[in-house]
């Protein structure tokens, strides 16, 4: 699904990302962990062709993402508020995103209705623009918006931060329940959630991949050990 080849990115002469090889298959749930500045968001931005790689490339379905726009039709992401349209209501935002994939208004409404427990009556059907929503609610809109239109690849940057504990667990369950035939690539600082839901874990440190392993009980221990403060 996604293949990263010799990808390098630097800012102001300082290397922030240098990945020789990552190969993600369809159906995997990949967790990306690493301390601040490890390069997680940079990697996501490169996969989405939002920033220019200094060398190397990202292939999506064997096609270089910087040379084609085909990936835009099956890829979705929520990295930050730049993926929200703040002058729309949440319903209109979902309708807009769905519309890009020829979903009717009712299709979209029925689809997002199943996430009502997450929205908790504060988002759907409200006469409020997204810019008026709280940070947590904006995040919920962004995460659910990324599920609309049957994307095959979903990138979520820190989906658990700023959410209440129950919603964090609900979001975790969404990943499990919606992972058939699609790939999740999720970054997080929450090791518990990552260890719980991901089938594979990649640890980044100073822009380099230091671990890339299938999840297992042993891996879980190693993961916690890695981030132990000595």
């Amino acid at each position: 699904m996604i293949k990263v080849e010799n990808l390098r990115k630097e800012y102001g002469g300082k290397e922030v990302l240098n990945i020789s090889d990552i190969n993600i298959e369809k159906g995997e749930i990949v967790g990306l962990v690493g301390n601040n500045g490890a390069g997680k968001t940079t990697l996501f931005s490169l996969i989405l062709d939002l920033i220019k790689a200094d060398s190397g490339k990202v292939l999506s379905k064997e096609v270089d993402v910087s040379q084609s726009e085909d990936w835009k039709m099956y890829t979705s992401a929520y990295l930050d508020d730049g993926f929200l349209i703040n002058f729309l209501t949440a319903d209109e935002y979902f309708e807009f995103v769905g519309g890009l994939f020829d979903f009717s208004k009712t299709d979209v409404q029925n689809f997002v209705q199943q996430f009502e427990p997450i929205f908790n009556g504060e988002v759907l059907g409200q006469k409020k623009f997204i810019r008026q929503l709280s940070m947590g609610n904006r995040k919920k809109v962004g995460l659910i918006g990324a599920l609309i239109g049957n994307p095959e690849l979903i990138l979520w940057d820190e989906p658990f931060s700023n959410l209440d504990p129950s919603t964090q667990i609900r979001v975790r369950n969404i990943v499990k329940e919606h992972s058939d035939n699609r790939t999740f690539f999720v970054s997080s600082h929450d090791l518990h959630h990552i260890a719980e839901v991901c089938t594979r874990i990649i640890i980044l440190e100073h822009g380099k991949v230091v671990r890339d392993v299938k999840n297992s009980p042993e891996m879980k221990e190693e993961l916690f050990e890695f981030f132990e403060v000595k």
Partner: protein
Amino acid sequence: MKKPNFLKHAWLSFRRSPALTQNILQTLFLAFFGFYIAVSFLVSGLVAGELIRDFFPGRDVLGMAGAFLIYYLPMDILMRYFLQKFPTLSIKPYLLLPVSKSAMIHYLLRRSLFSFYSFLPLFLTLPFFLVEVLPNASGIEAVGFVVMVLGGIVSSNYISFWISKASDFNNSFSIVLLLLLFGFLFLEFKGITSFFSYLESAATAFFANPVWWAIPIFISAGVYLYLFNYFKKHLTAEKESKDETYLQNISLGFFGRFGRAGRLMDLEIRLLLRSKRARSYLLMSFAILFFPLIMGNTEGLGEEFSYLLFGLLMTGMIALNHGQLMLSWNSLHFDLLLSRGNTIQDIFRAKYYILALSCLVTYILTLPYVFYDPMIVVFNTALLFINTSFSIYMYMALASYNSLRVDPDEGSSFSMSGFGAAHYLIGIPIMVFPILLFYIGKLGFGSTTGGILTLLVVGVLASIFHQRVINACVKLFTGNRYKIAEAFRKV
């Protein structure tokens, strides 16, 4: 309680503002622009006395000047309402600190007085005062003039502050007010009313009798106190959650049926209607439609020239205002547009069609001029197609390079962000090319009709090829996309 050095913080925020540090060319251009306005006001102030003697022979110069000042006051209030920034939020960070709230509000209110818009009238009135008032008027009249000017500036500042921050003032009301003001001027110049003679007697009375001087002082002080109490009550550290219900219930899904570009067009219309800044541009554009009524025939320019100029502005003003910042309007959600479900070509197609549509709509709105002066409609018809081709192509080409971030919710339409030198410069070819084309056609065919037909044929042909131009711009943009998207992300 401590009183922080607000002035120092204000100075730092100015010194470190991205507009000043990152875009020197733009700052220079704005400085030049401000200088130009100041100089033209100075010169106008110097010759104002002569102009009044010319246009209103036999009338009292000082009285007429006072009449114009009174007439200008509501305009000034409206101008400030649309353009001036009243940054009430800038003191938010201090609210949780142990700082006296009254001191902060006093600072906030007083600082608003020291803006460009307060000094602007001085450039006009100071030379007039020196050249006309001082030598010719009595001492009491001279003082009265000063009171009127300063009182007007202070009142105007606080009244605008009040209507933009502490009242439910409606934008459509300002349109009505503008229409009334221009209507009076129009009727006055047509000699139908003598509205100005009432203003003249009011002004003369004001200058002669210090009792009247209390009026501006009372208004200024009253509004100041009202604002002080209002902010004391309403300015809290809590997030300001004004009820925004503007046009929320209107269904705007019309273009969705035309595919992805159509969806983006629907989005653009919502942006136009719901974002403060885009909306104030829109209102300014509609005001242009009344140009011919206000100006009548500007004989000095030559009739054809004014038809061309007004026609270009009338059918192209929305496109000019909105199009020059084409992609910048989407700064805040540009990453979504770049990565999700639509291609870059969809974006450019949506932008082209929405701008072309705006030209068509404004064109239709000018059709009633057929009863006033049919030639306006004839010229507009030809110029419509120039605007839907050449002008929009220029904006699209500019958008393929332009990387100025715009926050469409920022109230003031002339705030620095998103306003670059290129934006003033692009006005030149957009005006010059069609006017040149007309005169070439006119010379070639030896008649005005020839010039109009040239515009029409060139415009229609160029409009037909819009798909090719869109593709070319998409290619240009694709090459610059990282640079542009990065600039849009920067706060």
